[in-house]
């Protein structure tokens, strides 16, 4: 079937997106809809002495003003990993931008004006607005550690909170001291990674309508079922009384994972007894979630011939005032820290740290993006000292399929050596370089898939068209197209006869989440299985209709064929029900138990993170120009190669932004570049001269047809490649982003060292 897997079917949502017909949450209209606005703290850390909302409440057009006193009938704390966050600040604020009150009014201007009439008396508290301050002995405490409760989806073992450290995680193998004793080359360095804004172009938008003892929520959320669970717990409702509907998302990249603006919007609608919309502006989105800034110390040991033997890593991630997904980010960073090499011993100690900054959560390829450029720059440094080529040192040391990545985890399920060779080929590795030009590559792994719990339903309707009910969120990655293709393959049905509506927890069945590159593999497996059930029913009905054995029937192009005789699916369903109505239903499920425990050890698969770059340095200004970017999509089997390439391009460009200029700059907890005027993301003029993406299909993934997920790896691979390409020109940096100023400084230092004859000072 030409529209099943492996084909470049055009996106099923493309037409609606080029005509403006595609509906996003902010495009919805409800009768009686109120506009909600949120009052946010101007202080990084302060006690709330008094809030007076009288003047705001009496402003004509204002329907409700919400503060924490309206939440006394519920347990107002949420947080999927640690239940540390009140729905609105209670008694104290912990970051600049923390919501402490909200207003619902007939229009946005009135709501905004009402915010200015709320009087708040603060008492300044000492703040810990950096990792260093938060980790110091006399640091102000963000939370009392004995009050920290695990969230609904914690799943990370003991919290082990300590001071401002809310979670710690360590992994190790072998005797570290002994391994370092054997090392003949040792590289040791400290590194800094900046806070980064995901910038999904559609800021978080939520509409909530409270009706009796239930609530309907339209939300720009990636994980409707996890949001449903948290809302049900917060407002003490059965899960089925919380209905989450997810229109198209204007980008996610992790920024819309887990619960964000939904609790405030629901609380406001509950009080107002009318539907309320809260639409974040970009400056509000920036204080809703971001990527963790990080400090890291790494030490790598090798033998004189470049054999890697030992690595020791300590890392501290700034999760801001509330944990959000910080613990998972820290655990994933720990998984990524050793890098995919055959170590005698490694040890990683990773800490998730509260600070008086806005909360940090998921952003595409979290953990791997943080660590890969660090680990890979040390591998390149060892290669330089050992006199080994960077490609050769990787071939020499990379894990092979089936080898252990970390103790207790899934063995390697990818051909990393092949992937690295593809990068090298695309970069013309070893060919002469123009002046001031360097080449670099990076390879790593990202623990992907999250929890393997997904379900799907396929309905074959009376007219022979199919509807695929699956709760994966379409946020641009093309999931509705991919699910259509998977169903098309099993049902032997043209794509235009398949419909994949958006997620709606009253209708589309449970899917754990849309993230961690899991949808094609896991929700796709559920769709595949559901479609197979329908396929089986069609075959059985056809075998009765044709009065032949099942094996004599072929399904093709929306019909069952026996030789040159055919019955359309519509005719088969009518035959089955003896009526011009009825439908066939197939269900599919993925669970760790249902897969003989093969997913239980985690991760579901190791996502390959490889990238290559060729960069040109302007020695006068420190400016880098990217002449070539390369990615390899090691995806097992591509359902739609064009969509895979599109993911690679997008992730690579985000990687370029993370590497070269993206950084949220804070001063005493206040963001200094809090709008798009000052926070620069890549534009058309930042594009590399050339982009090459190679597809690897070794059918080594756990999904149907050997599929494994994609879409994140290049974001971790690209910064590592750019950092190494710059080092190839002789400039080593230990802090991202690679701003011209920082590169120029590093260049001057490198030149000064060179003038000193290279002797260490």
């Amino acid at each position, binding site marked *: 079937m030409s529209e099943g897997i492996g084909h470049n079917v*055009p*996106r099923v*949502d*493309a*037409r*609606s*997106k*080029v*005509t*403006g*017909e*595609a*509906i*996003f949450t*902010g*495009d919805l*209209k409800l009768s009686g809809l109120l506009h909600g606005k949120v009052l946010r703290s101007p202080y990084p850390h302060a006690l709330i002495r008094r809030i007076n909302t009288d003047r705001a409440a009496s*402003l*004509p*057009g204002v329907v409700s003003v919400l503060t924490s006193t309206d939440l006394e009938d519920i347990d107002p704390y949420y947080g999927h990993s640690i239940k540390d966050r009140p729905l609105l600040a209670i008694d104290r604020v912990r970051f600049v931008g923390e919501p402490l009150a909200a207003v619902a009014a007939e229009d946005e*201007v*009135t709501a905004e*004006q009402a915010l200015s009439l709320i009087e708040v008396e603060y008492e300044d508290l000492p703040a810990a607005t950096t990792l260093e301050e938060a980790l110091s002995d006399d640091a102000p405490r963000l939370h009392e550690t004995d009050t920290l409760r695990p969230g609904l989806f914690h799943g990370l073992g003991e919290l082990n909170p300590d001071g401002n450290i809310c979670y710690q995680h360590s992994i190790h193998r072998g005797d570290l001291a002994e391994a370092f004793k054997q090392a003949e080359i040792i590289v040791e360095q400290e590194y800094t990674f900046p806070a980064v804004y995901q*910038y*999904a*172009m*559609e*800021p978080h938008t939520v509409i909530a309508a409270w009706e009796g003892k239930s609530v309907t929520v339209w939300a720009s959320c990636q994980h409707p079922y996890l949001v449903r669970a948290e809302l049900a717990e917060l407002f003490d409702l059965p899960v089925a009384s919380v209905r989450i509907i997810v229109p*198209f*998302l*204007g*980008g*996610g*990249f992790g920024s819309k994972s887990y619960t964000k603006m939904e609790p405030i919007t629901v609380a406001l609608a509950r009080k107002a007894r009318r539907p309320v919309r809260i*639409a974040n*502006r*970009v400056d509000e989105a920036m204080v809703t979630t971001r990527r963790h800034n990080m400090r890291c110390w790494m030490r790598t040991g090798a033998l004189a011939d470049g054999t890697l033997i030992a690595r020791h890593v300590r890392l501290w991630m700034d999760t801001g005032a509330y944990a959000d997904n910080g613990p998972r980010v820290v655990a994933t960073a720990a998984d990524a820290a050793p890098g995919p090499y055959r170590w005698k011993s490694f040890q990683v100690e990773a800490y998730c740290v509260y600070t008086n900054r806005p909360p940090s959560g998921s952003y595409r390829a979290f953990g791997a993006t943080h660590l890969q450029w660090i680990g890979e720059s040390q591998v390149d440094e060892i290669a330089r000292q050992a006199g080994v080529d960077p490609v050769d040192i990787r071939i020499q040391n990379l894990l092979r399929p089936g080898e252990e990545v970390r103790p207790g985890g899934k063995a390697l399920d990818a051909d990393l050596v092949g992937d690295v060779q593809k990068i090298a080929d695309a970069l013309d590795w070893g060919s002469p370089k123009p002046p001031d030009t360097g080449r670099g590559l990076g390879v790593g792994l990202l623990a992907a898939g999250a929890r393997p719990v997904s379900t799907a339903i396929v309905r074959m309707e009376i007219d022979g068209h199919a509807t695929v009910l699956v709760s994966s969120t379409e*946020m*641009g*990655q*093309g999931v509705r197209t991919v699910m259509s293709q998977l169903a098309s393959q099993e049902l032997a049905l043209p794509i235009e006869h398949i419909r994949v509506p958006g997620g709606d927890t009253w209708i589309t069945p449970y899917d754990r989440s849309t993230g961690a590159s899991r949808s094609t593999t896991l929700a796709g497996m559920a769709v595949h299985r559901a479609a197979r059930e329908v396929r089986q029913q069609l075959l059985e009905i056809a075998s009765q209709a044709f009065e032949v054995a099942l094996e004599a029937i072929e399904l093709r192009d929306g019909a069952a064929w026996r030789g040159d005789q055919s019955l359309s699916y519509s005719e088969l369903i009518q035959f089955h029900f003896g009526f011009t109505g009825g439908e066939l239903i197939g269900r599919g499920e993925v669970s760790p138990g249902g897969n003989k425990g093969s997913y239980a050890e985690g991760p579901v698969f190791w996502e390959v993170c490889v990238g290559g770059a060729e960069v040109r340095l302007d020695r006068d200004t420190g400016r880098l120009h990217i002449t070539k970017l390369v990615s390899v999509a090691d995806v097992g089997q591509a359902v739609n190669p*064009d*969509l895979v390439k*599109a993911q690679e*391009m*997008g992730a*690579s*460009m*985000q990687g370029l932004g993370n590497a070269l200029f993206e950084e949220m700059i804070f001063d005493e907890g206040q963001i200094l570049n809090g*709008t*798009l*005027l000052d926070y620069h*993301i*890549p*534009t*058309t*003029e930042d*594009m590399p001269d050339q*982009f090459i993406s190679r597809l690897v299909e070794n059918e080594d993934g756990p999904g149907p047809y050997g599929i494994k997920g994609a879409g994140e790896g290049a974001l971790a691979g690209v910064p590592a490649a750019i950092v190494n390409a710059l080092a190839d020109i002789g400039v080593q940096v230990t802090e991202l982003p690679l701003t011209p100023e920082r590169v120029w400084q590093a260049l001057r230092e490198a030149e000064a060292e060179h003038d000193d004859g290279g002797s260490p000072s």
Partner: protein
Amino acid sequence: MRVESADVYNSAQIQIRMIVNGQSMEATIEPRELLLDFLRDRLGLTGAKRSCDVQVCGTCTVLMDGRPVSACCTLVYEAQNRELLTIEGLADGDELHPLQQSFVEQSALQCGFCTPGMILTANSLLEEIPNPTRQQIQHYLKGNLCRCTGYWSVLEAVELAARRLQAEGQSEGSA
């Protein structure tokens, strides 16, 4: 009734005329009213999206007398006696505009949030420069951000549309 809250803003109501997607219309507006809110909330034309609010991202782009403007930073009043084109007015009935068609074929979109603005800016470019170089496209689209695609497919779609529009123009010219 005098509404205290609106005093600052509702000091006057203004009658304006304009053409929106080929239809002339009159409206009573408030001086402070932004074109983006007017299009989205009052006319139900939600193709133009709100994102950065500071005229950087281009997702609210509409064409005013053929030139791209950021509707988030334009007063409705500025559209007085002007002709507006939004994404909803670009296709000819069911037949997509060549730019829309090439965006579909090249998968030059992912989440689609920036797409209406991107296509309208590209439309203005091709009116001005029918056969742009890649650098000209990059320069012209600099004010339309996209976080999903990395822009390659967008550039290819614009180039494809340019070729088609030129071929169309030539065949019309020779007819």
